[in-house]
């Protein structure tokens, strides 16, 4: 079954108060290399087989899953694996 992994993040221009607090906590634990932390949302959506999944997922992001005023999103559709498996982690890190 195809599935989409969706990451929604606050726009870089906005203060991410949660990220800032986590960054400070990490710094206080001695991880001095932590320059910035941004916290976002990860969603996995299982989908029925279909032709225009890309377009539909993009539309879902634009209409509901992200707010374009404050957020950016990124998604990947996977067709070749089982959507119940372990999340692959952040896209773009592979």
């Amino acid at each position, binding site marked *: 079954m195809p599935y989409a992994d969706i990451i929604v993040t*606050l726009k870089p221009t*906005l*203060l991410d*108060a*949660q990220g800032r*607090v986590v960054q400070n906590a990490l710094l206080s634990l001695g991880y001095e290399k932590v320059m910035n932390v941004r916290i976002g949302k990860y969603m996995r959506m299982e989908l029925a087989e279909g032709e225009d999944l890309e377009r539909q997922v993009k539309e879902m992001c634009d209409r*509901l*899953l992200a*707010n374009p*005023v*404050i957020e950016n999103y990124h998604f990947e559709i996977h067709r070749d694996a089982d959507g119940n498996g372990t999340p692959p982690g952040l896209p773009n890190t592979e």
Partner: protein
Amino acid sequence: MKVGVIVFPGSNCDQDAYHAFRDNLKQPVELIWHQETDLKGVDLVVLPGGFSYGDYLRTGAIARFAPIMRSVEKFARSGKLVLGICNGFQVLCEAGLLPGALVRNAGLKFVCRYVNLRVENAETALTAHCRVGQVLRIPIAHGDGCYVCDEESYEQLSRNRQVLFRYGEADGRITLDSNPNGSMDNIAGIANERFNVFGMMPHPERATEKLLGSADGRLLLSSLIESVINGARTGA
């Protein structure tokens, strides 16, 4: 004159609004469930505070698609008066009826206390009973009240005097310290371009009787009521 208060699952200031309009401002009020599609002939729609749909995804994001919201959008686009308080403000932003968005308080804490609001524009249906520079004492209670918008919207808000309230000191000075949530430019409440849709994080409905701490919110609710009555009289 009839007021409609929309009730979403998770609204928790709907009864406060109901009480304020019915008992303190002596107006007929009707609670309208989110699954309804008919606004039942009300003249003023109030989207109350609370945590509609548990604030899941984003505050107001799910409520914005509730069946009643199609009617509210039509109502607003026809020029009729809509007031969103706290979560209601968040819903109106999500619905695109007001510019910008509300994000997590800069201090991350849920802040529940009285604030001083400086009135920035007293020529609107919501603020007609106030004067510019007047300081209102009204409570806030929110975790996601930090108002943000893009530069273009901000310029438009400023140019058209759509910012109605800013957080300030008791003497009306606008300071960093008086900003409870990190809102851009201390913005606490705004109007749309037509000045018929209003959103504010503070709760005027919780400030309509001295016994409970402040009656300053009455100035705003009574302004709206008078505006509806005058509008009906002039056929506007």
